[in-house]
């Protein structure tokens, strides 16, 4: 008689793998530290510029770029938590016990990463949905830009993977804190490098891939695609390196033996590395300085000329970063639109996206231009125009037989609102940066008149203009104290001369 013991077959094949992974993921989702820290994530977003801007004028480029801006606090925070989660088994001295389980350890680790990432993505998606819904209700022109949302959704897995990898290789109690602060610092350094015109720094996930001027010139997905490739690469390389730590690709003494278990990790890591290299190569090909040289017809050295950084920035800021490999980098044409105009005595026309601010912009412009209405040489309407490199974005121009006051895009409530109002007052007084400056005495007369326009409109001077020449302020007080009829008569007779720089300060009555 023989006794046969029941044979227990170990679970094998993809079926058992696919069965166990969701269960493991459910457990990890329930036991993730990120859940405990949701209130901090809410606070990080709630007090971020993204939510603060929801009360301002809704422009799709700004709101879309804000989704990348929102990563500033969230990304490093997720990286820190992922670093903490990665060291969990080792901190609890579970390594030996878990090594006896039949599942591949890389899969087990990735499940912890996936749970952390899924919670962060869920949070980010809710935040994005909220911003989209609110902006959809507020915006009067255009639609969302896909680039920032794509980068936001890929950045969180990358932050999480990077933090997780650091936590895996350095599983100490200090790692999460230093990963979070370090990631935040690296993004700050990256932004600084990007503002200095260093191309690789455009890969930072918080560098906006949509410029504010997308409203006027449209936007390409160039930078968004390169940023996405980079983030996928970081995720792949990070996760692959963890897999290679568990399954060493080459083992054996004195000879190199390839182990099949390491193949997925090796492939993931190599793909990640290739994607990173590709994105770095692509972003390096973006030569915004040379691009601007073509744009302005001026030969500008490509790099190393510190004095040209401001111009270079201007170009990048104006049109966003374009990658030559993706096609034409010639000057984009302004997108067509039908302006909306106010009905005040001085009609003010703005881009339809600025329609919610039209009544307030019109009221401000009309209060500034009130003493000039109907005078020879005074503007008959004001028009908002897109910014163009090499051209003054504000001033009085002649179109046909009419004088038109052109002004750059700005919104009421902008921190520089009073500065823009001062610029308009100066333009109305004759200041035009595209013309050669009049003699100093004539400039002072224009300043005094601009000051009068601000005063009579009840707009306070911007703080940077508070130190005007005493003679100018005295002349303004003298002019403001005039009898209204006498002042109007003088303006009728001398406004054109004042604008043309032919009136000196002492000529003001």
């Amino acid at each position, binding site marked *: 008689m023989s006794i046969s013991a029941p044979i227990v077959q170990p679970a094998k094949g993809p079926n058992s793998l696919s069965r166990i992974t969701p269960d493991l993921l459910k457990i990890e989702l329930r036991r993730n530290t990120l859940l405990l820290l949701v209130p901090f994530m809410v606070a*990080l977003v709630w007090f971020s*510029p993204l939510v603060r801007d929801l009360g301002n004028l809704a422009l799709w480029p700004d709101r879309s770029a804000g989704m990348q801006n929102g990563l500033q606090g969230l990304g490093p925070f997720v990286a820190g938590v992922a670093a903490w989660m990665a060291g969990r088994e080792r901190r609890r001295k579970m390594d030996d016990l878990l090594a006896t389980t039949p599942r591949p350890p890389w899969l087990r680790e990735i499940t912890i990463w996936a749970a952390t990432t899924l919670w962060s993505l869920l949070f980010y998606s809710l935040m994005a949905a909220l911003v989209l819904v609110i902006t959809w209700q507020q915006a009067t022109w255009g639609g969302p830009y896909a680039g920032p949302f794509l980068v936001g959704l890929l950045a969180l897995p990358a932050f999480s993977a990077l933090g997780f990898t650091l936590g895996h290789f350095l599983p100490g109690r200090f790692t999460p804190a*230093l990963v*979070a602060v370090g990631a935040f610092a690296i993004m700050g350094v990256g932004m*600084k490098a990007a503002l200095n015109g260093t191309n690789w720094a455009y890969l930072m996930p918080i560098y906006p891939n949509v410029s504010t001027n997308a409203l006027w010139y449209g936007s390409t997905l160039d930078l968004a695609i390169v940023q996405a490739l980079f983030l996928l690469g970081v995720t792949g390389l990070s996760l692959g390196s963890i897999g290679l730590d568990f399954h060493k690709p080459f083992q054996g003494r004195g000879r190199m033996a390839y182990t099949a278990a390491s193949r997925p990790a090796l492939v993931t890591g190599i793909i990640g590395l290739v994607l990173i290299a590709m994105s770095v190569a692509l972003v390096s090909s973006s030569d915004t300085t040379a691009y601007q040289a073509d744009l302005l017809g001026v030969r500008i050295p490509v790099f190393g000329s510190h004095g040209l950084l401001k111009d270079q920035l201007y170009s990048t800021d104006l049109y966003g970063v374009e990658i030559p490999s993706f096609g034409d980098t010639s000057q984009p044409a302004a997108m067509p639109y039908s302006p909306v105009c106010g009905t005040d005595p001085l009609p003010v026309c703005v881009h339809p996206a600025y329609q919610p601010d039209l009544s307030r912009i019109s009221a401000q412009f009309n209060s500034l231009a009130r003493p000039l209405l109907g005078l020879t040489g005074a503007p008959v309407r004001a028009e908002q125009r897109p910014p163009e490199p090499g051209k003054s974005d504000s001033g009085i121009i002649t179109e046909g037989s009419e004088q038109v006051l052109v002004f750059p895009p700005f919104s009421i409530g902008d921190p520089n609102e009073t500065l823009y109002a001062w610029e308009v007052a100066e333009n109305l007084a004759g200041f035009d940066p595209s013309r050669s400056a009049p003699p100093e005495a004539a400039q002072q007369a224009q300043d005094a008149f601009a000051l009068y326009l601000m005063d009579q409109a009840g707009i306070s001077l911007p703080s940077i203009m508070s130190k005007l020449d005493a003679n100018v302020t005295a002349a303004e007080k003298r002019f403001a104290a005039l009898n209204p009829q006498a002042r109007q008569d003088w303006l009728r007779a001398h406004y054109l001369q004042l604008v043309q720089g032919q009136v000196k300060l002492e000529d003001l009555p």
Partner: protein
Amino acid sequence: MSIRSEADIMSKISSSGEMRLTLLFLRSRQAPRTLLLLAAIGIAAILWLSWDTAGEITLLMLPILAPLAAASVIGVATASPFGENEVIVSRPLWTWRLAHLMGLLLTGSLVVALAVSSWDLPYVGQSVVRNLAGFTGLSLIASWLLGSAISWSIPFAYAVFVLLLPKPDAIPIWAWPLSAGNDLPASLAAGALLLVGLCLVTWRGTRDNIREAA
């Protein structure tokens, strides 16, 4: 053996025991590693300053991030690997806890102040020391509230919030990390936070999971 020499021996045993306990306490808190990390933070700050000293991002971020990193390390360093076992010892724990924290705080202050000493910015030394004190206070409060492992979360979230604030004309007292180093109300606010944090951790300890000791 005379009575006097016996007392001497007992005294020597007692003082060597005290020293041994102190060293064990410091080892349990990973004090050597903490000091190394504080030094590394100082070196990182010096490297940053050797790269850029006048940029807007550097002016805004470095006086906050260097103390934040040091404070986060100090907060995490409060973790005890013994849990409740430690609470039942016959010696008063608060003296060791206080001495340990004060030592780290002094070292951290010295490190961040030295790191920025070559920076030609008014009151930057006072500013980083004040910020270190305030962030350490927040970190210690978080250690008591959430546990030392994630004690960095509160000062980190607060620092990000402050860094992303629009630049106000007058800095409110609750945004003390942004104030100049000679701003007395800001220093008092940071000092008050440190005092609260020190009191909580010194008297009550941290909310730590003994299984998470690393």
